């Protein structure tokens, strides 16, 4: 690291930060295409069919249809980029970016391994160092901004179905955000801090939050599905009702970016669930595990929850829109409120 710093004339801290940026964003970008493959093969597995297996790598190797992820990417790039004549041009260009950037940014706060000391200086394995004062407020803020991608995409398409789909899914995101925030606040209260590093440390000392606040976990988990617009809450689209919702008019790489944004959202959501309720990078029964093992533990938990997203999608039936709103406002919100007050009561009794 020092030689690299010397060669490029940058400080070690700058290089370390750049390296982390590359690592995290590269990870998300690299995982998203295989994730689409997992989604398709997983759905095939659950529906007792074979799934995509036709794309051959270099015309030879089938490798369980993994070539499809690659082929999809190539196809997105080479498709004609059509902008409908009635669209609001500038916003139409902006919308995929507005959807994609927040989806990527959310991951920045999540620690993916134990901080370690190397040659007398501390290295943290998260893009935003602990103690930055934003803590877990940051993903909430970024999640709140993610609505704009959908709203702008819907409105700029100037298409009734798009606007209906965008309206639905942004209304859903806004309503589920409240239950989500209240569930997270209960965790903050228990920890006495809101930095992910503190939250993980507390879970290592006392126990994972799934066991300590199962109700809060349930609410958070459900709201995360709604936030990332996944089945059973995927009201952004509906073939029979509003075609493909807010991305009806998008083609080529614009559609690709919107799709990537959805997968990046799921990866970030899995990271948040892992950090808040499953001890983050902590390895069970090993208080001071080596750094690489903590990264591995985080990856295992993350990949598990990413799989859960696919699993739930093909297991639960879809809701109806009024049922979704009912669930959000009359079930999730009171539940997370009850969780908050119950925990406050426990704490007031010294628990």
């Amino acid at each position, binding site marked *: 690291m020092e030689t690299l710093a010397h060669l490029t004339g940058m400080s070690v801290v700058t290089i370390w930060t750049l390296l982390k940026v590359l690592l995290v964003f590269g990870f998300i970008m690299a995982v998203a295409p295989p994730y689409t493959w997992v989604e398709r093969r997983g759905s095939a597995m659950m529906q007792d069919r074979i799934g995509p297996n036709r794309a051959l790598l270099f015309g030879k190797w089938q490798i369980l249809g993994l070539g499809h992820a690659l082929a999809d990417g190539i196809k997105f790039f080479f498709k004609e980029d059509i902008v409908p004549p009635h669209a*609001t041009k*500038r*916003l139409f260009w902006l919308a995929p970016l507005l959807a994609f950037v927040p989806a990527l940014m959310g991951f920045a706060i999540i620690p993916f391994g134990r901080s370690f000391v190397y040659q007398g200086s501390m290295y943290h394995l998260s893009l935003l160092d602990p103690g*930055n*004062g*934003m*803590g877990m*407020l*940051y993903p*909430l*803020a*970024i*999640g*709140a*901004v993610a*609505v*704009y991608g959908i*709203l*702008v995409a*819907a*409105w700029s398409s*100037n298409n009734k179905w798009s*606007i209906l789909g965008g*309206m639905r899914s*942004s*209304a859903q995101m*806004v309503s589920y*955000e409240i239950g989500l925030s209240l569930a997270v606040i209960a965790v*903050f209260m228990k920890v*006495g*801090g*809101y930095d992910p590093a503190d939250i993980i440390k507390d879970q290592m000392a006392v126990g994972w939050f799934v066991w300590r606040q199962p109700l809060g976990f349930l609410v958070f988990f459900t709201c995360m599905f709604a936030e990332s617009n996944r089945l059973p809450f995927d009201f952004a689209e509906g073939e029979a009702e509003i075609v493909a919702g807010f991305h009806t008019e998008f083609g080529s790489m614009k559609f690709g970016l919107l799709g990537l944004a959805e997968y990046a959202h799921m990866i970030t959501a899995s990271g948040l669930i892992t950090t808040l309720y499953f001890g983050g990078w902590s390895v069970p029964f090993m208080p001071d595990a080596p750094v690489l093992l903590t990264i591995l533990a985080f990856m295992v938990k993350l990949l598990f929850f990413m799989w859960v997203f696919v699993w739930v999608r093909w297991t639960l039936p879809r809701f109806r829109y009024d049922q979704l709103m009912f669930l959000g406002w009359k079930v999730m919100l009171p539940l997370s409120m009850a969780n908050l007050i119950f925990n406050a009561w426990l704490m007031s009794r010294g628990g």
Partner: protein
Amino acid sequence: MFLIFALITILGALAMFQQKNVIVAGLCLVLTFFGVAGLFLVLANPVAAALQIIVYSGAIMVLVLFTIMLLNSHEEEPAIKARPIQRWVGALLIAIFGAFAFRIVAGSKALAAVNDKALPVEGMNLNRVGEELFANHLLGFEIIGLLLLAAMVGAVALTKKEL
């Protein structure tokens, strides 16, 4: 850093006034909020920055845009007629308010304290906000809670036809 965020804030606000399209104007306002959040960050107050984004860009502006989208069509509405007098009065008012705001800020104790000695900058965090809120501003906090509750009940009463 300060200059960048200040420019984002001011340009966003100016662009908002220039825009004839309501939705684009709303998005420009969101840009302004982001600039303000950045300014809070420069002032070592990440909590305020996060809350600025969550509350203003995340909740309020989304609802405003939502309503506009529900009500409005895609056409840009031309001004019915030019109103030069109002424009000049507006500019005059801005100048007066700006001058007074500048005087108040320039004469405030906090600014003098900043100039006096190089205070060690201590970043704000949620714990300190909470302590301050519940130790020194408890009455205000409770009153605001009551006010918000009243507003919420009022909103429900307005939208429900039969109670």
